């Protein structure tokens, strides 16, 4: 095994959203930081979005599903026992490369679901604890949005002005206005004005296939260049096989594979930032005689409580031109009308809704019609294809309804020793069954979304999906105060191994009903700040 002689102050495993935020913060503070990333850098020129066939490339090489991509840097995910298919992207920038850039703070009630709604668990931190870190990362990511939203505490003031709501948002806003329902211009980690690291959005609308203009916040653009200027070292194509520990049970570094050769990187502190699937996979792969059930797993909860957002979608066709290919493709508008619990609806918790441009990718119209509820039995191909497409393209609005998802220990990430990645390491296996409460949230909100389409003037509206896959992998190393029922504490520090931290979506206690990148990033910033402020007290291996 080759050994890197330099012992880093901090080793970060995973160069996505949380890894980038932490790497920059720690490097700027003077720490020596090494980042191990199994993927590589993505050049803007490599993205599919400068090409006419971007949609086709996006369904293959650039697919959100690692099992479809099947690249060397991906690892297989066994989904045979899961109704959810986890999405992710392995590269510097992580899944941000393909995310929609919806930038949604969680809400105060998200952190107190046991107290307020009698379900799941309260988080060990509050909205107020995270708020300054939300604000900090919103500046770093160039978040655009409008202040004053009555769905949030008044401290939510994005640093850049909101994007125009476009014709699609305006038409739907008029419908929501008729109903007296909440709506608000969308929040996006896509700058409406040029920033130090990002261009102004050109509204191509192709954000989910990678922005060719450098106008979408991804940590390969917004964080790692600054981290590297301050000495951070990013090692790509470096797949971590296991985190190592000493006899005292402290983390000492990690063994990784690069080009089939084993290397060792020593570090005082190890931070895992490999997403809600990759993080438990690595902790479980790091089992040893000392920790036979995997690292940080005295609670038995590593990998357990996997949550995602099996969101619903509905579409409406509108006679007037919507021109719904105008970006950005994060949120055009959002609604929090049905976010908070109203038990008369037959469930607790709720759903954020948002609109994204629906005609950017025209082949998506095929499934919307041929798999849609009420349209699947109507003809589409042959003599109807062009007429159907003409009715839909440029004349459609799509609602996405994002349900809160509550944890269940029967939903989990485990190792699959029957399949391996390109380095021979075990694949991940996911088991996920949508909970009854989550199903009810989706179904009820989709019904309301059809009412919204009608109020906005749709000539036809229907449900296109009740269990859409997301890249939101959450809850598999939850935070908590009690070591017997949580993996990490409120700072992301392992209860078992005091110099091992987790900072990605794994630490979520509940899923919240919003896209998670804002909260993941704020948590990473908070943990990195804690590490800087408590460096002298940090226990490390001798």
């Amino acid at each position, binding site marked *: 095994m080759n050994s890197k002689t330099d012992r880093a102050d901090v080793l970060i495993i995973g160069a996505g959203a949380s890894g980038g935020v932490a790497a920059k913060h720690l490097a700027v503070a003077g720490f020596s930081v090494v980042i191990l990333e199994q993927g590589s850098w993505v050049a803007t020129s490599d993205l599919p979005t400068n090409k006419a066939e971007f949609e086709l490339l996006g369904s293959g090489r650039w697919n959100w599903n690692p099992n479809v991509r099947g690249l060397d840097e991906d690892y297989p995910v066994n989904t045979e026992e899961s109704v959810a298919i986890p999405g992710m992207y392995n590269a510097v920038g992580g899944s941000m490369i393909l995310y929609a850039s919806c930038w949604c703070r969680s809400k105060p009630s998200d952190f107190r679901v046991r107290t307020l709604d009698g379900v799941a668990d309260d988080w060990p931190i509050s909205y*107020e604890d995270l708020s300054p870190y939300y604000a900090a990362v919103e500046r770093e990511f160039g978040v655009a949005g409008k202040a004053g939203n009555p769905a949030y505490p008044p401290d939510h003031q994005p640093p850049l002005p909101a994007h125009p709501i476009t014709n699609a948002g305006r038409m739907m806003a008029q419908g929501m206005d008729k109903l007296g329902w909440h709506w608000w211009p969308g929040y996006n980690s896509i700058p409406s004005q040029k920033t130090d690291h990002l261009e102004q959005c050109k509204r191509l609308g192709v954000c989910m296939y990678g922005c060719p203009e450098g106008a979408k916040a991804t940590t390969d653009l917004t964080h790692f260049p600054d981290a590297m200027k301050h000495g951070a070292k990013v090692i790509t194509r470096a797949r971590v096989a296991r985190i190592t520990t000493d006899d005292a049970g402290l983390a000492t570094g990690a063994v990784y594979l690069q080009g089939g050769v084993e290397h060792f990187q020593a570090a005082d502190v190890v931070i895992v930032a490999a997403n809600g699937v990759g993080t438990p996979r690595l902790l479980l792969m790091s089992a040893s005689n000392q920790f036979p059930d995997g690292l940080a797993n005295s609670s038995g909860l590593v990998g357990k409580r996997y949550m995602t957002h099996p969101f619903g979608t509905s579409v409406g066709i509108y006679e007037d031109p919507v021109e719904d290919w105008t970006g950005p493709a994060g949120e055009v508008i959002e609604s929090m009308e049905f976010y908070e619990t109203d038990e008369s609806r037959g469930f607790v918790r709720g759903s954020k809704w948002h609109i994204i441009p629906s005609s950017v990718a025209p082949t998506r119209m095929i499934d919307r019609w041929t798999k849609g509820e009420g349209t699947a039995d109507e003809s589409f191909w042959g003599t109807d294809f062009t007429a159907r497409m003409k009715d839909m393209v440029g004349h459609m609005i799509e609602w996405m309804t994002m349900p809160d998802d509550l944890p269940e220990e029967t939903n989990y990430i485990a190792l699959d020793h029957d399949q391996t990645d390109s380095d021979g390491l075990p694949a991940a296996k996911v088991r996920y069954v949508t909970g009854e409460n989550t199903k009810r949230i989706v179904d009820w909100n989709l019904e309301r979304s059809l009412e919204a389409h009608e109020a906005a003037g749709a000539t036809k509206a229907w449900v296109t999906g009740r269990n859409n896959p997301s890249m939101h992998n959450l809850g598999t190393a939850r935070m908590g105060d009690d070591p017997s029922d949580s993996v990490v504490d409120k700072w992301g520090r392992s209860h078992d191994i005091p110099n091992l931290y987790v900072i990605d979506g794994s630490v979520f206690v509940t899923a919240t009903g919003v896209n998670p990148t804002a909260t993941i990033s704020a948590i990473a910033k908070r943990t990195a700040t804690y590490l800087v402020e408590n460096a002298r007290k940090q226990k490390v291996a001798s």
Partner: protein
Amino acid sequence: MNIQIKGKDKGFDFSDADRDRLAGFVDALIAGGAGFPSASEADVHTVWIDRALGARPDLFPFVRQVLDTPGEPQDVLDRLRSEEESVFDELGFIVAGAYLINPKIRKGFGYPGITPEKNPAFPDEAEAYLADGILDRVIERGPIYRPTPDFEAS
């Protein structure tokens, strides 16, 4: 601009007979109408299928399977739809994808360019959409979030 990609360089190829037979399939899927040409009139079976499969060469076996299935195209497609839906879906996707990247077709559907076009916002555009006060009514209805019940910074 030369937009043709040689299929055999990408690991797939069609003979002239293949392309003639493919024309029947693509037209059975996209017959045209509503001001649009059929798929073969839009050169799907000659030009654009190669471009589409260049992006998704993994879908070539589905096209090959369909071409090699005896029978009239419509009959073959009807049987696939009822008995092998995944094959039908993959064929439909790649044929529609090929049709929809033809610039003339894309223009016909109203897209502003052959690829997504830059359209940066005007400085006051965001406020213009809200100028009639439509958002004021949302604000006037007041807060709709539940505050932290036990707020005490930890």
